[in-house]
């Protein structure tokens, strides 16, 4: 999280932090374990009133940032959601609202209902086959026919698909043999041919589905932007998702770390607090370093993606790869330093371990993003 926040940003963050303190304490998260949606509709609407889904939408379409950098503002909320291991499809709703808001007109009712929290949306980007977790590997077919489109393919994992009123589906035109451009279609969830299969997940409250599109027919105005010309928009969506997701992971890392530091002071062995052992102090120093580095690169990625600088792709991949790898190292070290209690359901630590673990694999794994970084470097060196 940013070290220096404007008073407006701090108000935004603080309001959400206080709301989450009350709305989703640990016992509530445990209760939601058995809830099919993982969150209550009223909880989400109230969150939306605090600005959860409006920051990435332009002002003239009903949204607006508090600092002029909507994505940076939204990462402050994502951080709090991670810090509280809070439920709700925050990343997807923001990415879909931003995508619809950035397209030329249309879908106003959907945007409005996402901003108010009356409905939620899911971004159907990832696919289950190797390489399918990133846009370049997308195989879902979009067939153009007179007056409309037909969708065929399977997306997974799709968050809150059963709760979503709309699915933003990213696919490829069947005519696009050269794989030159992606196409996005906004699919009302109730459309014939949309089939959901529930998945199990490591997170306690976040739910995922595999969504099959079996000859799903929609009119042409369901296409967001121009058919075959969505690659740039999809890349931006991916970067936004990464910025929000890494900020959320950093929040959960911070919470797990703070809990573990407190534990090290409280827990005595052989008449000394754990915090007095140099072997353990040095592990805490390593964790603190990973944590600060994660804060730093996540914030830098959010700022670059928001501003659309030339470094955005590199920073997004560096953030996703680093936070994915070192975030999970950090939370597992927190478990180790807790000892046996750290792997029980009763202790709260796992709520944050789960959140960071899930974050590691959504929107590309550390390994995927390391290869992306190498590819960017290779291109730059060939140019220069």
């Amino acid at each position, binding site marked *: 999280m940013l*070290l220096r926040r404007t008073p407006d940003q701090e108000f935004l963050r603080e309001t959400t932090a206080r709301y989450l303190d009350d709305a989703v304490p640990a016992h509530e998260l445990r209760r939601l374990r058995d809830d099919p949606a993982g969150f209550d509709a009223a909880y989400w609407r109230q969150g939306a009133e605090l600005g959860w889904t409006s920051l990435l939408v332009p002002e003239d379409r009903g949204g607006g940032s508090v600092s002029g950098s909507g994505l940076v503002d939204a990462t402050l909320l994502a951080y709090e959601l991670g810090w509280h291991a809070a439920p709700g499809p925050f990343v997807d709703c923001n990415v879909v609202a931003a995508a619809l808001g950035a397209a030329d007109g249309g879908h106003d009712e959907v945007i409005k209902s996402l901003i108010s929290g009356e409905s939620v949306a899911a971004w159907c980007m990832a696919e289950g086959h190797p390489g399918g977790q990133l846009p370049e590997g997308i195989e879902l077919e979009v067939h153009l026919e007179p007056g409309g489109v037909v969708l065929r393919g399977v997306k997974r994992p799709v968050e809150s698909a059963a709760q979503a009123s709309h699915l933003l589906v990213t696919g490829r035109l069947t005519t696009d043999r050269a794989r030159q451009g992606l196409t996005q279609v906004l699919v009302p969830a109730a459309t014939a041919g949309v089939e959901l299969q529930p998945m199990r997940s490591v997170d306690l409250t976040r739910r995922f589905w595999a969504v099959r599109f079996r000859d799903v027919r929609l009119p042409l105005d369901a296409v967001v932007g121009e058919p075959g010309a969505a690659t740039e928009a999809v890349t931006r969506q991916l970067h936004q998702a990464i910025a929000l997701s890494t900020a959320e992971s950093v929040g959960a890392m911070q919470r797990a770390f703070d809990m573990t530091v407190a534990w090290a002071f409280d827990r005595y062995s052989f008449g000394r607090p754990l915090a007095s052992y140099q072997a353990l102090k040095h592990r805490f120093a390593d964790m*603190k370093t990973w944590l600060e580095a994660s804060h730093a690169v996540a914030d830098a990625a959010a700022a670059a993606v928001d501003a659309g600088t030339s470094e955005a792709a590199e920073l997004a991949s560096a953030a996703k790869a680093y936070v994915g790898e070192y975030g999970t190292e950090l939370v597992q070290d927190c478990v180790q330093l807790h000892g046996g209690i750290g792997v029980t359901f009763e202790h709260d630590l796992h709520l944050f371990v789960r959140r960071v673990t899930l974050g590691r694999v959504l929107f590309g794994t550390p390994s995927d993003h390391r*290869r992306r970084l190498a590819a960017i470097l290779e291109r730059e060196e060939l140019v220069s």
Partner: protein
Amino acid sequence: MSGDTDRDAAVRGAVGDDGLEDVEHFRARARAWAEENLAPLDPTALEVSFRAGLTEEEELAAVAHDRAVQRKLYDAGFAGICVPREYGGQGLTPAHQRALNDALAGFEFPIRLQSPTFAPCLAVLLDFGTEEQKRRHVPAILRGEELWMQLLSEPSGGSDVAAALTTAVRDGEQWILNGSKIWTTGAWWSDWGLCLARTNWDVPKHRGLTVFMLPLRQPGVEIHRIEMLNGSKEFCQEFLTDVVVPDSDRLGEVDDGWTVGTRWMFHERMLYNSPLVTFPVGNSFHASGPSLAGVARAVGRADDPHVQELVGEARMLDIVGERLQERIGTGIRQGLISDQAAAIARLFKGVVSSRVRTIAFDIAGAAGGAWLAEDGAAAERGTEFLVRQTGSIGGGTTEMARNVISERLLGMPRERALDRDVPFRDVPRGAAGRRGQGVATITGGGSPAQPAGPGAAREEGTSP
């Protein structure tokens, strides 16, 4: 100075309410000047400056060239950006220094003057120098006329800097210094040294130290170059024998050297984050070796997915390191986080430099163990691997950084020390410290080899 009037003319009309030149205007002006006046950066310059590869003559020529480039910067009004104007600087802000780092991207710059001359030495002078001391030395440093070294570490102790054995004894208006210092970078071509010496053996260690300034080229100062295992002779050891230092060259109060030393080590940890240092952007954070993608191409492994992951990992660590430095540097400057947080950046940098050298060695494969000149970027990766740990040793070991982070930032209990509240004279010392009383060479001068402590390591900012 001739550049002054040119500069005043150039910035007219671009001055803000604070009386300072607009940062963007400054950046554009610096870029235009660099394009006119500076040569492109030799891509090998950074690497060569940090390891073996230059003959003595070549290195002296490189030093002379660095001085000349610094003089150019000075004459054009681009030296000492954050140094007050009365001492020959520009009186501008860290934002201007960052703009200069942007503007100089891809151009030559005085590599050897940045550390330790500008940071920590110049920084310490600005913090503690008397008006007379600052007027004498600061402009000369900015003109490239005085290269400084830090005479801080001793053979008898690496991390425990405050246990210095080098002794200064008062003799009227002057001091007589005896002892030995080590791990000084390029002392053999430097002009002045900042020296931490013991002035009182009858008080606890932190309370009996004093800092002095002394010319390195004088009778009684003997400088030996140390050959590192990769052939580099970058580091030196100095032997001080009855060196006379006038009291007017004392920096700070007598026996209050640890106050100076604490800031000194703070400035050292700031490294390239110091607003006194010019380090053009685009130069690698870990400053060691060619691009890893280049190593992969040299051995024909650029298409190997495993190698791509390694290249990507190194790039990731590089990017994250830059952003971490930035976060911590800005946080400290703005007073948002403790000065001690510099240890976080230090630990990260050390661990990463080891990891990146391992990656390079891995990618090079067998060419890392034995190579031909035509192996290009893959050559020497094994040599770099041999000195892999230097980044985790020099300038304060990563173990000391871990102590600082856990104790100073997280508030965990301090390690037990047997030298607190005890007159330094009575503190237990190992064989190296007892035998040589600070004049032992690193190999013990004929006696069995005695480890001298891990390089220029530091006890970070301990207060008495």
